[in-house]
């Protein structure tokens, strides 16, 4: 009964989404404000019904209702409660429902704050989000109904894919979806700007916090995915340039560009149509990611079970929203009047424009690498794949100038930069970065060039970002820094930490595949690893083989590592759980391979040993970027936006 109610609620939600889309649109076009006012209650109702449907599916998982096909396919009577709940979004159907739920949450949030918007803008924004809801709810109901019954009911479920039975993967997809779906808000604001023909400072102020918030969720989502891959895949890697990873990375790159171009649009009233184009692109790339993951056009390790019918449906959604909005763009973007005066390259806006060029080209490079196999196949050229060498060769040179720009832009003011200020503000960060880089290069030895460059760039980003906060803390600053400025500094410090981590890990990681008998020791990078054997232990729904490896340095044992192989009864291939000893400047990482003597657990085993310097900095940096985004989005000037007329250029907070 509950699953049927859930299905019914989903249908009602679709109806309300349809109302939320069409009635306010008609109202805004014909200037009937009572129609436009339907937007908010419809959004609230849609949220309630989607939330009910989601709760109904969760309930079916909790009570192990194996008469629901989706539950039977993705759960099992022995699956722990935590994973029964996360199994709700463990496969295609339920993850779509999660998508719809997140979208309705974003819509609810927008509709609550829409009172501060001019009524036509608010109505169009909520209506556009309603259109996105209609598309995804119809997609769910027509091709991917999670409430479908299985008759007769299964005696037991098939179990959740063991790869997904990990705490990191419980929150990774919701964060990613919050990011993907969040870009629909910026998209809807872009549509509103195109339809009303009004794009001013106030518009940029409304759009900024939403965009930054979506971006910060996406940042967390991607970082969690990377962290999970590092722990679970047992290859010691943190990024694989897999099509699905790229699918989340492209909207991130364009979203980052959008955050910066919105700053220019807000402060200087420039780059208007470019900003709108980026807002459309960020959401288009989110939809593209959905298409790539769910249609089966690309081979990937984490593509969903695919079905051509679904591919056609997502492509139709993509075409409707992206081609439709770009048509609107082609027709209407000419109406935006940019403020008088062009852009001087040596100015804050000029450098931000350069930042946008590099970020966009980087996103295009990733797009090309991701789709290239598809292009070649579509043109009859056969199957091929583009690997990490392409991405690293193209991507790294594009990101180096970005990090240089981050520091430079902090010292260059809007309209026209002053050379003397650049000199007086940047010599100290530059000197710090250069001297630390020299120290790092000397310590690194063989990999001195890459390590030195990473430290130079990273410390440069950190030190320049610290300039304003330090000045404020020391009481030497005349202006008070707003949250937006604090957030920006923190995010740029995060970027610096990230760059140092990526550079050093890539250049100076060492690894070794070894065969060890019990009691044997192997050395790697000054660490001694002694294999103490493997024991078997039961888990809640698996049996584990847990290795014991003593890690020592200079004769002193500092860690007992316990890498695991888990065997789930539903799956022949064992899952890997690597074991790490973490210090801020390095990880010692061991993953358990296979028993080498005819499956004899007590014999020799293959093991992988890694020493990964500074790898934690990658995730620490990402987290600080997200945190910085959160602080910036909570700046009070966004909450005041719209209540009073705001001049296009506001010099009080020069740091943004």
């Amino acid at each position: 009964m509950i699953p049927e109610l859930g299905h019914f609620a989903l249908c009602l939600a679709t109806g309300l989404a349809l109302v939320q889309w069409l009635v306010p649109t008609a109202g805004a076009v014909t200037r009937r404000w009572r129609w436009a006012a339907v937007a908010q209650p419809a959004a609230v109702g849609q949220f309630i019904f989607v939330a009910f449907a989601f709760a109904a599916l969760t309930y079916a998982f909790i009570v192990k209702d194996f008469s629901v096909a989706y539950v039977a396919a993705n759960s099992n009577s022995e699956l722990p409660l935590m994973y029964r709940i996360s199994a709700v979004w463990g496969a295609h159907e339920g993850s779509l429902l999660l998508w719809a739920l997140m979208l309705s949450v974003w819509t609810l949030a927008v509709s609550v704050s829409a009172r501060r918007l001019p009524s036509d803008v608010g109505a169009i924004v909520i209506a556009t989000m309603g259109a996105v809801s209609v598309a995804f709810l119809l997609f769910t109901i027509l091709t991917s109904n999670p409430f479908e019954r299985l008759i007769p009911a299964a005696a037991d479920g098939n179990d959740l894919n063991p790869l997904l039975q990990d705490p990191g993967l419980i929150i990774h997809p919701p964060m990613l979806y919050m990011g993907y779906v969040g870009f629909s808000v910026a998209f809807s604001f872009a549509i509103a700007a195109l339809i009303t023909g009004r794009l001013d400072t106030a518009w940029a102020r409304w759009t900024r916090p939403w965009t930054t918030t979506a971006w910060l969720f996406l940042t967390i989502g991607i970082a969690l995915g990377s962290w999970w891959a590092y722990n679970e895949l047992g290859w010691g890697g943190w990024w694989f340039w897999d099509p699905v990873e790229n699918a989340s990375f492209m909207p991130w790159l364009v979203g980052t560009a959008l955050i910066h171009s919105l700053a220019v649009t807000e402060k200087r009233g420039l780059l208007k149509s470019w900003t709108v184009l980026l807002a459309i692109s960020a959401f288009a790339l989110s939809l593209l990611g959905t298409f790539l993951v769910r249609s089966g056009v690309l081979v990937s390790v984490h593509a969903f079970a695919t079905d051509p019918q679904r591919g056609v449906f997502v492509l139709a959604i993509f075409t409707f929203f992206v081609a439709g909005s770009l048509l609107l763009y082609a027709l209407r973007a000419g109406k935006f009047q940019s403020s008088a005066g062009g852009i001087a390259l040596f100015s804050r806006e000029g450098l931000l424009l350069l930042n946008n060029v590099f970020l966009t080209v980087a996103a295009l490079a990733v797009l090309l690498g991701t789709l290239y196999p598809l292009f070649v196949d579509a043109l009859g050229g056969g199957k091929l794949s583009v690997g990490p060498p392409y991405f690293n060769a193209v991507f790294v040179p594009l990101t180096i100038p970005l990090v240089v720009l981050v520091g430079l832009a902090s010292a260059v003011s809007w309209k026209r930069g002053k050379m003397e200020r650049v000199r007086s503000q940047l010599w100290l960060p530059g000197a710090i970065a250069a001297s630390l880089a020299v120290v790092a290069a000397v310590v690194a030895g063989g990999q001195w060039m890459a390590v030195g460059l990473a430290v130079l760039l990273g410390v440069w980003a950190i030190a320049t970002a610290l300039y304003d906060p330090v000045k404020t803390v020391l009481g030497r600053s005349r202006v008070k820094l707003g949250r937006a400025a604090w957030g920006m500094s923190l995010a740029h410090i995060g970027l610096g930490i990230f760059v140092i981590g990526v550079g050093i890990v890539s250049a100076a990681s060492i690894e070794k595949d070894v065969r060890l008998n019990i009691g044997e020791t192997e050395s790697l990078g000054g660490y001694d690893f002694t294999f103490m054997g493997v024991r078997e232990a039961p888990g809640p729904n698996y049996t584990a083989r847990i290795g014991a490896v003593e890690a020592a340095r200079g004769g002193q044992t500092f860690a007992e590592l316990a890498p695991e192989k888990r065997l789930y009864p539903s799956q022949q291939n064992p899952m890997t759980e690597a074991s790490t000893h973490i210090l801020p400047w390095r990880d010692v990482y061991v993953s358990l391979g296979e028993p080498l003597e005819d499956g004899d657990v007590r014999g020799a085993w293959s093991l992988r040993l890694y020493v990964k310097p500074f790898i934690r900095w990658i995730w620490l940096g990402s987290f600080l970027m997200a945190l910085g985004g959160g602080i910036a989005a909570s700046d009070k000037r966004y909450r005041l936006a719209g209540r009073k007329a705001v001049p296009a250029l506001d010099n009080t907070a020069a740091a943004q």
Partner: protein
Amino acid sequence: MNAKRLAPLAIVLALIAVFGVGLTLKPGEIPSPLIGKPAPTFELPVLGQPDQLLTLDTVTRQVSLLNVWGSWCIACRVEHPLLMQLAADNVVPIYGLNWKDEPTAAQRWLQRHGDPYVASGQDLAGNVAIDYGVYGAPETFLIDKAGIIRHKHIGPITEDALNNTLLPMIRELQAAS
């Protein structure tokens, strides 16, 4: 409206066209060089009756399916109900190639999920699978009475693949013989 503002739309429309073509392609489908060629011969102990042998000659007595499976293979369970249905309807004899499996686990799996196979050969070392160019389970070969491989399906058999590809081919081959 000028051409510059139309450029993004033009690019996206071109992309959509490529995606449309892409949807008709199957990236997982790598053409098998064995199609139209004689099926490699084999002699394997029958699962459950290891003193008997399953050979290619048995398989080619009629138009048959040779299905590569294992109790460890999750995707095999997805297609299993369809195989059970085919067996129950007596459409075509299905032989199993039980690939790199524990015989006891394999038998338990068949007891639990049902046994659609006339017989399954135990390919413990995976040598026969290598001869057949198998690189993942499940895979299904359609072999005619002359012992020629007519079709190879990679991955779980879907309703669509069964109704639109496999069944028409099976009927055609059965009618021809």
